[in-house]
């Protein structure tokens, strides 16, 4: 079968991309979603705090998803749920399978990867100890409670103070569990202050910075964890161990873009973001394959996922019409405290105002976020504080965009504010 545009993933990224591709004139669109309903991970994020940027109101996850699902349904965009994409190659041949329709093969003119991210598991962080039941990633626990209606445990320790971990501390507390501590390896949290206050402080849940879990005990089920302080090199300090009785350990230790399909299509991935390397049309280095949302880089707010994905959808539609910007690429580097910038490249003859999204590598106060083109500072924004937990966005105007696109070497960096 042939399709102009296949969007892999029916979460916030895929829905927004579909909507804007349609609005840009594309009609032959198919969204493939592996779960049984559209909405992606938002369906299990029942807390509020979504949509302040997009809708100027505070929605819960399912409500935010419902707004975009409505946009897609109103446009009668085709979608298939319960359908998993099995493979995709660089010629945009997509195979997928579902219970009701069997194996399906599509030849697409363009593909948008919008498959989101996954949680870093226990194994990836090398925590020693037993392999008993009761160790969950925070998202798995969230799904068990909010979607399936089962409690993963009663006495809980949470490792990692990412937003999902913080949200789950409150969620488990609401359902009658006792959250004994949230333990964070770094000297700062990667979660939002708002979540630290409203999910931990409100319920007197201790947050222990520069600590980690060094042992998990229990036969059958977890019975306790041992935590310890860490030194500057993040190694546990002997003698600081303390044992906390609990039946559950939740892990909120980071998210990784899910790029299994991208690899099959020879999409070039960035070792820093874990997502594809893209140009300012959100197109990967494999012709006609686009990426947006958390599969590209892990976002802090869903509003930015929607925004980025709408752009990707519109540009994919332009690509299908043969109107994609071409020409030489200008690399946009990240330096001086900036860990990465997306997109990694700008195309010289693209017209639109550039939007650069980035994350920093540490907490910096009173700095300037600058865009430097061939040694000349074309943009600068003063920031009271930047933290690794929050994505920064730089919106360049027409003139600044042109300066960037006409230079040889562009970088984004942090600079100290001169007194």
């Amino acid at each position, binding site marked *: 079968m042939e399709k102009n545009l296949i969007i892999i993933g029916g979460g916030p990224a895929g829905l927004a991309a579909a909507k804007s591709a349609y609005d840009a004139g594309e009609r032959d669109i198919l969204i493939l979603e592996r779960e049984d309903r559209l909405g992606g991970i938002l369906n299990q994020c*029942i807390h509020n705090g979504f949509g302040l940027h997009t809708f100027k109101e505070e*929605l819960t996850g399912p*409500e935010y998803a*419902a707004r975009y699902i409505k946009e897609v349904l109103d446009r009668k965009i085709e979608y298939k749920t319960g359908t998993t994409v099995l493979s995709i190659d660089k010629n945009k041949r997509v195979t997928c399978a579902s219970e009701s329709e069997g194996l399906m093969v599509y030849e697409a003119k363009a593909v948008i990867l919008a498959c989101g991210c996954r949680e870093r598991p226990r194994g990836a962080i090398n925590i020693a100890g037993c392999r008993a039941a009761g160790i969950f990633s925070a998202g798995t626990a969230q799904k068990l409670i909010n979607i399936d209606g089962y409690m993963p445990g009663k006495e809980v320790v949470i490792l990692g103070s990412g937003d999902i971990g913080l949200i789950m501390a409150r969620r488990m507390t609401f359902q009658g569990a006792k959250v004994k501590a949230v333990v964070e390896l770094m000297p700062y949290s990667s979660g939002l202050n708002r979540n*630290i206050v*409203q999910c931990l402080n409100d319920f007197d849940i201790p947050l222990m910075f520069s600590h980690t879990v060094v042992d998990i005990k229990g036969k059958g089920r977890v019975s306790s964890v041992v935590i310890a302080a860490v030194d500057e090199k993040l190694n546990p300090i002997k003698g600081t161990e303390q044992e906390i009785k609990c039946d559950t350990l939740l892990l909120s230790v980071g998210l990784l873009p899910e790029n299994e399909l991208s690899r099959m299509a020879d999409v070039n991935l960035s070792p820093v973001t874990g997502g594809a390397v893209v140009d300012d049309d959100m197109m990967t280095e494999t012709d006609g394959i686009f990426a947006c949302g958390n599969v590209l880089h892990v976002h802090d707010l869903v509003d930015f996922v929607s925004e980025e994905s709408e752009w990707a959808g519109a540009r994919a539609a332009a690509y299908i019409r043969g109107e994609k910007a071409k020409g030489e690429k200008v690399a946009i580097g990240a330096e001086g405290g900036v860990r990465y910038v997306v997109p990694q490249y700008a195309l010289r003859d693209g017209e639109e105002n550039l939007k650069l999204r980035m994350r920093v590598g540490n907490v910096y106060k009173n700095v300037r976020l600058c865009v430097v083109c061939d040694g000349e500072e074309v943009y600068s924004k003063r920031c009271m504080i930047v933290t690794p937990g929050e994505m920064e966005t730089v919106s360049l105007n027409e003139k600044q965009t042109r300066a960037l696109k006409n230079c040889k070497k562009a970088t984004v960096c942090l600079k100290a504010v001169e007194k």
Partner: protein
Amino acid sequence: MKEMICICCPMGCRLTVDDSDPGNIKVSGNTCPRGAKYGKDEMICPKRMVTSVVRVEGGDAAMLSVKTSDSIEKARIFDALALLKGVTVKAPVKIGDVVVADVLGTGVDFIATKDVAARAK
């Protein structure tokens, strides 16, 4: 006197709120005026939105997510949650449907935040 973290921006200023004179609450430690307002509001009557789930019968999902239609006093969160215990609603449910009306006499309702269709027979 109370210590708190301002949540208005990522700065996370550590505020000290002095309420020894209830008519003149003083906030220190803030970097900007938003912090002063936040500190005062949190001191006088902190409010929170409450979100949770209840069971659904006969729907295409097992659980229905709900929220308070407006924020309620922080001190009453657990009393409000207790009202959801044992509540089961029948599908179909639409976003905005009232699940528990007038929570604790506040005039605030628990409302559905998700559409649940009736299960196809």
